[in-house]
């Protein structure tokens, strides 16, 4: 009974804390401007199924895709087991689903095989990060915290899977001993090999089984509450992020409505403008971006596929699309904390541009869309870079001198170079 009460208290506390943090995350995302991403629900749903659930974009790199698929399947499917743990925990039952008979045996057996797969997958991931030191996992933005974050996640998953398998091994051994409460149920294709490592005394086995059970469930609740602080948030955000992702051709940039109003009014004085959101042109800080840009930042799991295909980054420039996303998230969290402390409207003198992302970075982009193509969950760093450029050019008139010259040429003679419009057809006349 005491155990049940402790269990319920811990679970409720974990859920409450998680809800509290999620509310803050949602509030932070809502700092962004509106963006119309509610059209074509069917196409959006299919995109989510294909890209997030089906992980289709992962398979451009088959090895990590395969390992990731196992870890992902393990994560999703083993959660059925968590459901059983929750019910057992609340009602003080043991293996409540065991009445399902051979279906239960099949389920537990598959969980064990998956658990082993997850264990091995995470071990390989750790080796790739820490021993093979794959280039994709380094870079200026990959400072101590992002590196540790990745390792904490992988180690936690290994520990959780170990606890799960040890729990089953002890359980199976107790079943053979005919121990009270330990009904004969489940199949143990993996943990049977761990049984020999365990002691033979019933009391010790019960302690191990109970210990691992508590470790597993508390571990999962802790892990849940770690998500809002971690790059691992993608396990939740991948779904809304792909649902709300850009469905238009990648080459298409948004047309700014606020500008359309001004241009139309300039060309036609009788024009009555449609309503557009107030604010500055482009983005100086995170609240000038859209909520989609900000959700993208929370979704990023810092895998570095974008940066590894970025032509600017490949050739040694400062720009790294992954850094754009990480900076946006860091700045958003900072703004969020400012609001917590001092309420809305507090100016800390910092901004996304300059404090976090330098001019040199945004001007190195070729807008080639390699980053958006490479992202397995449709994050769009280019949209943020474009907004920062818009701010620099339209609000500050600060762009490289040669860009200014190009803009001046378009304005004056309708071409990015200094040629006379009268000469536009000369190619047809000369050789």
């Amino acid at each position: 009974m005491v155990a049940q009460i402790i269990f319920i208290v811990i679970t409720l506390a974990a859920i409450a804390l998680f809800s509290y943090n999620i509310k803050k995350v949602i509030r932070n995302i809502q700092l962004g401007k509106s963006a119309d991403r509610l059209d074509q629900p069917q196409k959006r749903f299919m995109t989510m199924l294909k890209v997030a659930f089906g992980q289709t974009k992962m398979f451009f790199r088959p090895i990590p895709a395969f390992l990731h698929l196992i870890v992902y399947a393990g994560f999703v499917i083993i959660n059925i087991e968590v459901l059983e743990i929750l019910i057992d925990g609340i009602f003080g039952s043991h293996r409540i689903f065991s009445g399902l008979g051979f279906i239960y045996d099949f389920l537990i057996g598959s969980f064990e095989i998956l658990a082993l797969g997850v264990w091995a997958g995470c071990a390989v991931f750790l080796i790739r990060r820490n021993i093979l030191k794959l280039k994709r996992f380094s870079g200026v933005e990959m400072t101590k915290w992002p590196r540790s974050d990745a390792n904490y996640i992988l180690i936690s998953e290994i520990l959780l899977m170990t606890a799960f398998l040890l729990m089953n091994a002890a359980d199976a051994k107790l079943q053979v001993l005919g121990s009270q409460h330990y009904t004969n149920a489940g199949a143990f294709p993996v943990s049977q090999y761990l049984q020999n490592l365990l002691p033979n005394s019933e009391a010790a086995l019960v302690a191990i089984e109970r210990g691992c059970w508590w470790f597993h469930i508390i571990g999962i609740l802790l892990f849940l509450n770690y998500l809002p602080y971690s790059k691992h948030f993608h396990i939740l955000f991948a779904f809304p992020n792909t649902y709300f992702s850009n469905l238009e051709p990648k080459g298409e940039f948004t047309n700014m409505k606020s500008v359309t109003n001004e241009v139309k009014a300039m060309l036609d004085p009788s024009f009555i403008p449609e309503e557009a959101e107030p604010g500055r042109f482009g983005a100086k800080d995170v609240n000038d971006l859209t909520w989609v840009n900000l959700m993208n930042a929370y979704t990023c799991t810092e895998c570095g596929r974008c940066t590894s295909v970025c032509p600017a980054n490949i050739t040694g420039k400062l720009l790294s699309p992954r850094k754009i996303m990480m900076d946006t998230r860091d700045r958003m969290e900072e703004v969020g904390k400012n609001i917590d402390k001092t309420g809305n409207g507090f100016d800390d003198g910092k901004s996304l541009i300059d404090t976090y992302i330098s001019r040199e970075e945004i001007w190195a982009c070729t807008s080639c869309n390699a980053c958006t193509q490479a992202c397995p969950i449709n994050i769009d760093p280019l949209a943020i870079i474009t907004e920062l450029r818009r701010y620099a050019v339209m609000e500050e008139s600060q762009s490289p001198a040669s860009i200014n010259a190009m803009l001046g040429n378009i304005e004056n003679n309708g071409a990015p170079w200094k040629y006379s419009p009268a000469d536009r057809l000369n190619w047809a006349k000369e050789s």
Partner: protein
Amino acid sequence: MSEQLNFEVPTMAEMIAKGEEPEILFWVGCAGSYDERAQKTTRDICKILHHVGMKYAVLGTEESCTGDPAKRAGNEFLFQMQAMTNIEVLNAYNIKKIVTGCPHCFNTIKNEYPGLGGSYEVIHHTQLIQQLIDEGKLKAEGGESFKGKKITYHDPCYLGRGNGIYEAPRKALEVLDAQLVEMKRCKSNGLCCGAGGAQMFKEPEKGNKDINIERIEEALETQPNIIAAGCPFCMTMMSDGVKLKDQDKNVQVLDIAEITARANGL
């Protein structure tokens, strides 16, 4: 094979004056109009249109920058000014279908003009060439033979990733009976030439290599006779790269329109 055109290029103004309507408007673009190297491609597109007897016209001096480089550089004002002025001209001529000689113009007119009141059917010249081949109106005969030549095609970002057009340019090359070789990074994984996003008009940021060098090295790895391009900016970047690598004697950089024109003796 003279570079000079032995026919007149009709302008929209002339056509309307004669009371005629073209089947398609050829949007030449700034590079195609002014850049000497790109002008060759422009003339070859005209030769192809003339050869198949398609009724076409250009805007001539009424054409102006689509606003693409302004938009990519962040100057939305200038972009929309250009766009609306161009749309006014296009709509006044009642244009329905446009072929462009540049993926940047193609992307801008096709995707960004509709929201500002300019909706047209827009194709890139490699798509036109592919359609003409499919319809049997264009073959690869009567001109230079490309048989057995090694050709590698460089995907322009705004045609490939930007608009998902990977096959049309390749089909246009397939009829040549040449040997098509792909670079390591191709199609959706293609590497930019370094000119997009208004980079064409500025010096690159500090780094350890220029992007076009990285790309040309990859292209040269395929040991091609010809590097095929579909974009005037890629053309500049790739040609510069070949020259810097001292390979301009062995490797030609040609637009798909030029290759097609040559294969047909135009």
